[in-house]
């Protein structure tokens, strides 16, 4: 019972200052290219990823319904059955899920009749419990419902169940561990990215000791929790579904950097900076920011930041973080991660110390400015999208192998 009427996201130009006609014709061309990519056997997934990333994303919910399954390699001919009612009483997370879904009114289109909304909320509960029940290794977190509702509203209950299950065992896997340690490690990438681009903002935020929790809900809901315009949410989902699982943290960095002036003018204390950053502006230039996030990903790929993310924070865990993260992003079971971590901890502790020294010497500050010039170019050429796809494949070969065995 998805919203058949909520169509056409990119009806008007998503970029300011570009002629409507120009955009209309590009849009038409894009629709044709997407159809083409869908019609070949096997489906041209690389082309679909490019389309999902580039200007305007996948354009309409109708297209999303066809393309999202391909991006996740979910087969639509064999969808799971509707879950039974008995799940409700028996599941350990039932009460939390119920509580969160009941108060998630804002996620539904304003003006939707209560009855319809309540029906969708029931479906939302069913999908979540179904996925959790089939995957006991996954743990519900507050915010998961914000992700699931996006899929429910775009593709309907049955397909949403299948897509969300795939997503949960891949992109969202780290957030669904018994603890949020891996999520915290991912948040540790935020400051190194910011530092590469604008050391002043980085230093200011460090001095304010603002931490990274302001970006937590951004990361674990793919911004679904904080953006009130659903069109922006689905546009971002196009982008994230086509990219490396760490892309949301690059996008978070880009938002902070976009607000650099406001940040630097803010009082330099934890409360003020946290408050400023956690109130996300609703009129962000999404297409520009998406393109910029892609550029940053290419210039400062996770592997380059991993050691820094590990060493910049918390001395006690620094040694294990890098390794943890590598393993975690390869989507291994957490128990394996933990076992290996124990074994390798001693060795890594020594190793990372020498890394730390080496990195300091090897990273001249000027480098980031040279690279920024490159960024401007790639935005203009739209090459970032292509590069991001390629790099995504390069950096996450394991993830991709699992999605496309």
């Amino acid at each position: 019972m998805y919203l058949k009427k909520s169509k056409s996201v990119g009806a008007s130009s998503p970029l300011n200052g570009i002629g409507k006609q120009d955009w209309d014709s590009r849009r038409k061309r894009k629709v044709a290219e997407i159809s083409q990519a869908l019609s070949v056997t096997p489906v041209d997934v690389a082309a679909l990823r490019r389309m999902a990333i580039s200007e305007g994303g996948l354009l309409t919910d109708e297209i999303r319904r066809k393309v999202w399954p391909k991006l996740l390699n979910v087969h639509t001919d064999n969808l799971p059955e509707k879950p039974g009612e008995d799940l409700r009483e028996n599941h350990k997370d039932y009460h939390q899920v119920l509580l969160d879904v009941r108060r998630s009114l804002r996620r539904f289109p304003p003006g939707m009749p209560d009855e319809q909304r309540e029906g969708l909320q029931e479906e939302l509960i069913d999908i979540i419990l179904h996925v959790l029940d089939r995957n006991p290794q996954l743990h519900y977190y507050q915010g998961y419902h914000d992700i699931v509702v996006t899929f429910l509203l775009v593709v309907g209950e049955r397909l949403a169940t299948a897509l969300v299950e795939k997503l949960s065992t891949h992109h969202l896997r780290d957030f669904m561990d018994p603890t949020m340690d891996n999520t915290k490690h991912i948040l540790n990438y935020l400051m190194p990215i910011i530092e590469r681009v604008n050391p002043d903002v980085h230093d200011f935020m460090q001095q304010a000791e603002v931490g990274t929790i302001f970006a937590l809900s951004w990361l674990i809901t793919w911004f679904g929790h904080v953006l009130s315009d659903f069109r922006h949410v689905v546009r971002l989902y196009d982008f994230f579904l086509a990219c490396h699982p760490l892309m949301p943290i690059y996008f978070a960095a880009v938002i902070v950097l976009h607000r650099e002036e406001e940040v630097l003018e803010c009082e330099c204390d934890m409360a003020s900076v946290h408050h400023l950053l956690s109130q996300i502006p609703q009129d962000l230039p999404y297409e520009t920011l998406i393109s910029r996030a892609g550029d940053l990903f290419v210039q400062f790929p996770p592997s380059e930041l991993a050691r820094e993310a590990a060493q910049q924070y918390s001395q006690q865990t620094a040694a294990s973080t890098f390794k943890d993260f590598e393993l975690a992003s390869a989507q291994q079971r957490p128990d394996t991660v933990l076992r290996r971590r124990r074994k390798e901890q001693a060795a890594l502790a020594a190793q990372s110390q020498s890394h730390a020294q080496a990195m300091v010497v090897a990273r001249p500050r000027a480098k980031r400015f040279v690279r920024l010039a490159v960024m401007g170019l790639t935005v203009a050429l739209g090459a970032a999208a292509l590069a991001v796809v390629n790099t995504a494949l390069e950096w996450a070969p394991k993830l991709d192998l699992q999605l496309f065995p």
Partner: protein
Amino acid sequence: MESSLELTTSLSGTSLPPLRSRIFKIIVIGDSGVGKTCLTYRFCAGKFPDKTEATIGVDFREKVIDIDGEKIKVQLWDTAGQERFRKSMVQHYYRNVHAVVFVYDVTNGASFRSLPAWIEECRQHSLGQEVPRILVGNKCDLRDAVQVGTDVAQKFADSHSMPLFETSAKNPNDNDHVEAIFMTVAHKLKSQKPLVLSQPPGADSTVPVRKREEEEERGPWGCSC
């Protein structure tokens, strides 16, 4: 961890002495769904929110109040109730907390039984009896559904040397009550913190104040409920 007061300095003109207001940082904790977000919203915005959502991580609200002619900034840190957020995420926000508000839902016995765990979490962040702590039983408007009686709650509060307040973030008749609860905490904080000496302009705007002596407050402190 040291409980400290902070000063913010704002210059209203170059020749005038800096105006500063003290900041009281209060953390609000308790199980998911007990009404932490509604209570903090009610205090800061003066009304019951029509739509709240699950709190992910930590939310922050503040309100400037006036006590005996002094402007004081009350910062409320509204935390996520779900267990998994606590260990790795919320920690950071326990720093320099001046007071703790524990919340349970009077219509939900489980939320009351979780209180010892919440008190223990605070203790682990060095927030024991030396900082003002209060216990708030929320949703009193739902009279027919009460599961936690006042007597039981009062006994519990006494045993932990906390004052107990029963209230409702929702019931408009209790509007003043929610306000009064936080004001009581603010008064308590103000009365026990020595005034800070003025600082020449340009000095560091954040000044830790010497630690409060461990004196009078052993028992539950004055409450109007």
